């Protein structure tokens, strides 16, 4: 029986990190939906979120509850600068060029973090408490539980916003047809900016949660690679897909990490990625693109 209990605990931890993956994937999806850019720098903006929080809460010893919104806003600011400064200029260039710009941006951000804070891993000041959470007999780490709750709340809010909020509808309209949306009076460039700001702010928030669990370091952007798998498996333009695939990949990572060994974590998800690309290239919930001459 204890084996089964252990299995459940592992699965719960997997769902917890899966929720974080979903949150990061949401940042990818938001930006892709609006601007058709796969922003590989999301993983580095996630890292910047963690470091902003570190700088504000530990460096300037602000209360975590003040530092938290400021750090998230910092992520949004990066998004705004990047969108207006670089991505807007690249409109109409091939998707690959824009993708490579975000790869370059990621490298710049990693370099900046190493320049300012050095390469040593740091721990974030504690703002969650450490008392473990029990569900019945099941033990979960408090931080993972909090991450799960926060991530699910944020995703739920996003789903509602997409459905009912004006801006959410504008974003969906832009995603469907930019020219039609523009002629309906939707401020399409504004939607681009908004998507980048909200996406990057979400990534920064995910970075703070991730940093609270495992500490921050210049290499924590590797988490973004798993999130990339999530986006592909779920479908690049589907919020629902990000949620479902995030939990799925989180579970697979947890099981592979526990029962096969830590080194199997990443490789198992990437095998799923390759299989998915071969079988259903547009993901579980993604829109199939039809190409014509």
């Amino acid at each position, binding site marked *: 029986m204890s084996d089964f209990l252990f299995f459940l605990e592992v699965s719960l931890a997997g769902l917890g990190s899966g929720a974080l993956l979903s949150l990061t994937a949401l940042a990818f999806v938001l930006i892709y939906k609006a601007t058709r850019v796969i922003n590989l720098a999301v993983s580095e903006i996630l890292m910047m979120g963690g470091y902003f929080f570190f700088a504000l809460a530990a460096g300037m010893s602000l209360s975590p509850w003040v530092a938290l919104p400021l750090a998230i806003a910092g992520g949004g600011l990066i998004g705004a600068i990047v969108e207006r400064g670089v991505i807007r200029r690249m409109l109409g260039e091939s998707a690959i060029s824009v*993708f490579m*710009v975000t*790869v*370059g941006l990621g*490298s710049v951000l990693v370099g900046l973090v190493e320049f300012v804070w050095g390469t040593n891993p740091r721990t974030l000041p504690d703002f969650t408490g450490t008392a473990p959470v029990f569900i019945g007999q099941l033990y979960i780490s408090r931080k993972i539980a909090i991450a799960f709750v926060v991530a699910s709340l944020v995703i739920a809010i996003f789903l509602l916003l997409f459905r009912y909020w004006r801006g959410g509808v504008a974003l969906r309209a832009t995603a469907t047809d930019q020219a039609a949306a523009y002629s309906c009076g939707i401020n399409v460039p504004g939607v681009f900016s908004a998507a980048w700001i909200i996406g990057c702010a979400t990534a920064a928030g995910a970075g703070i949660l991730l940093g609270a669990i495992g500490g921050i370091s210049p290499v924590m952007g590797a988490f973004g690679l798993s999130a*990339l798998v999530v986006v592909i498996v779920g479908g690049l333009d589907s919020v629902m897909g990000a949620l479902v695939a995030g939990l799925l990949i989180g579970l697979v990572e947890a099981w592979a990490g526990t029962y096969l060994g830590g080194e199997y974590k990443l490789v198992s998800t*990437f095998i799923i990625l390759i299989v998915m*690309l071969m079988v259903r290239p547009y993901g579980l919930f993604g829109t199939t693109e039809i*190409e014509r001459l």
Partner: protein
Amino acid sequence: MRIATANETYLADEALLRTRTQWAWLGLFALVLVAAPFVLNNYWLYLACLVAINVASATGLNILTGYTGLVSLGQGAFMAVGAYTVAWLSQKTGMPFLVNILAGGLVAAFVGILVGIPSLRVKGLYLAIATIGASIILQFVFLNWSSVTGGARGLAVRPANFFGTSLTTYFQLYWAFVPITVLMVVGAANLFRTRIGRAFIAIRDRDISAEVLGIPLLRYKLMSFAVSSFYAGVAGGMWAYFFRAVGPESFTIVESIFFLAAIIVGGMGSILGGIVGATFMTLVPEILRFGVELASPYVSNAGALLSPIRTIAFGALIMLFLVFEPQGIAEIIQRVRRFFHLWPFKT
């Protein structure tokens, strides 16, 4: 306006180098390549060898990405396959290094075909992500297939064996690497004057149209992967003989990004671009090192700042070139050429 360039034979019309100026430049370049090892000191020879290796690999990636339009972030992993093959062969057999390097290229080409299989279904960004996945899986194999790859410790490589003499100094390695690289670059330049190369270009320009024209897409895409990873494998083999040790940390995803960045900076779909880009991207970190050394008396911990500055410069170069000069350095060179062609007439 260039005058007196009318070709009188078909042979002259389809020649790789059509003008005397091009021949003169090439002759000068060949002379520099031959003279370089006698003039340069050991440090610059080390860099020259590294440039030769990177040029070979970047040219390979240029065939795949620049000419066939298949974006790959797996070039580093293919190089690793070549490097591991060479390391293993050098330990287990006493074969001459040319055979080993060739074997490294062939094994890498085989792996390249395997990795290229997803291009059956996906292209563009999806393919780029698939190649990231493939390189992570390869990384896992290198780390865990200990009986062959030596696991986390990696493999040591015996010095290159060339008819009994072992090549150990940079001077000797230069004479081994530069001819190989020159041969491969000339091969690549000629490839695009053949049926296969033209098919690659057709696939890049519009793959559906190419298929309509009767080009079997899958076969040519896989062929492009094979050729490109053959180049990477040979380059990886040279790399193994150069650093004399191969480990799972030798070729990370950063290495793959480096090669993609090199052909972006140099100019995609241009042989000259691959050469210039790889040279430029290899030398930039060294230039930055000189800069930091100059600054070290004035800045307290300049040494520790070198690595972050390199990372920033690397990313910034990719971004700046894509935004301001998407055709790369090759386009700048063309512009300079045009200026001199039109010189007295255009004001």
